[in-house]
């Protein structure tokens, strides 16, 4: 997190990205690297295997700025990313986790 105050942070528009990915050791690096090398902060991240474990789901909470469209297109290009879905900040996946971060 950066040095913004909580109020300032809440004022920023947020988006939640939901990625279906192949489950192997390099996938997180591929996804997170796309954001980090553009200095695009990922505010929150959550990953768990789904189904048989051959696939995982990655949830990302990101700031919604003018670069997000391009970011999503870049994520979609990754070989191990099977699908990307975009949700609004109201999505409750991270909200329900908040109790573990108090």
């Amino acid at each position, binding site marked *: 997190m950066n040095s913004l105050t909580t109020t300032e942070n809440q004022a920023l528009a947020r988006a939640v990205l939901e990625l279906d990915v192949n489950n192997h*050791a*390099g996938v997180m*690096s*591929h996804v997170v*690297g796309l954001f980090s*090398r553009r200095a695009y902060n990922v505010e929150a991240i959550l990953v768990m295997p789904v189904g048989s474990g051959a696939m995982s789901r990655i949830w990302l909470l990101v700031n919604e700025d003018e670069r997000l*469209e*391009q970011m999503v*297109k*870049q994520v*979609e*290009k*990754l*070989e191990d990313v099977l699908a990307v879905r975009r949700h609004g900040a109201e999505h409750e996946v991270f909200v329900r986790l908040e109790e573990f971060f108090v």
Partner: protein
Amino acid sequence: MSTQRPETITGAQILVRLLERQGVRTVAGIPGGAILPVYDALSKSTIHHVLARHEQGGGFMAQGMARATGVPAVCMASSGPGATNLLTAIADAKLDSIPLVAITGQVPKPMIGTDAFQEVDTYGLSIPITKHNFLVGSADELLAVIPRAFRIAASGRPGPVLVDIPKDVQNQLVEVSEWPAPGVADQIAAPDADLIASAAAMINSASRPILYLGGGVVHSGAAEAAVALAEKAGLPTVMTLMALGAMPVDHALSLGMLGMHGARCTNLALDECDLLVAVGARFDDRATGKVAGFCPQAKIIHIDIDPSELDKIKTAHVGIAGDVRTVLELLQPAIASPQRQPWLERVAHLKTEHPLRMPGIDDPRTPYGLIRAVASCLDDEATITTDVGQHQMWVAQAYPLRRPRQWLTSGGLGTMGFGMPAAIGAALAEPQRTVVCFSGDGSILMNVQELVTAAEENVNVKIVLMNNSSLGLVFQQQTLFYGERIYASKFKGMPDFIRVAEGFGVPAIDLDKESDPLAALSAALSSRGPMLIHASIAMHEQVLPMVPPGAANKEMIGG
């Protein structure tokens, strides 16, 4: 999958067999401890291994093969420094969308993460500079990974793929009963018909349209379709550095290269256009100059195989994701051969008033004159490579490029040291051609060790070394934009390049010492085998016109 009698073989043997099945005839690389099992298997193969003298040289040789043919090419290196030395060539392939499969040895799996001898995180290092990469966990996996690597490298927008193989995986014995089909490029989804109709309507109704061709036109084999569209629709056509050759420069509709070192008429025509049809181009900053000032009056049609290129730099009014050749071929029947006389006359006027000025074009002791003299000795079958710097821009401006894949240059990454090994690769892939590498005294030294590879392989590569005793483009920028404070760009020591070449086993001539340089050049270029042709040029010569970095394209200096 093809079923055969099961055999028990090593991972290394599987790799080599898969490369053979893929149709790979030549690989370039350097062995080392962590890739020795692969080299042992390679020694029993019909694949020709070219022993580079630096892994970066090997990487650029593979690039030369891939750029000349469009087919994925292979380079190899060992772990650690072998792999890190390859990285520049891989990054270069990424930025220019060149299909490359890089195979690296890695320390045995149990030693990964122990800071073992020559261990480096090749997988991690290569993530941002590859289209995709693999760390292979078992010999079995190779059966899926290798065809997939070739498929990814060749599919859609091409690019480099790295396969890192731990030494124990190379040695692992497994039973193979079925062999996978070679990896080939995926089918590309058909473009949206409504968007094509909209694009055609925009082209038909435009008053001052320009066609803007990028490297994607070459990659897609769309040069013929692009020229046909330009002719039917009456579109003056500009090309990026990467697209040179897509439309012959002497075609009536060609405005040559746009951007930082484009002709005045080219950038001025773009400034006036009301429709820009971008095809396989990515609005690179060297092409657009200050983006806000690029084609300020124009609507934009953007056609690209990579959806992430659409709206990346400039928002398109119509963006079409698809194979550019397919899109161009679908567009053409919908074009109504509109009347463009006023615009074509205006462009002709700009060409007459503001042509590319090439002082000294008739004197082979000047940059432009030397380039034209080389061209006059060759036909369109010759392949031209360059290094990076002033010589590269002069050749881009002055060489009469007329054939797609005739022109191999490091565009996006701008890597000095690219030219000579890329020329070696091009000559290995297409030995019937003469391959000319234009280089400079700065660039040549960055992979000079590959002269011995050129001699060893006896490739038909002619290196035209334009020697201005300086890092010319740095010298030029310091002259123009840093108050003539020339620093670290003039070479004090200068190698005797004739003796350097001869020392590596490459014959050399010095045009400075020839009383008839044209005759000497002609004789040199018509000989077979490698040769270095040295020619001094004046240090003060500049590449003009020039758009100052950060300025709009119409704000050109000189020319």
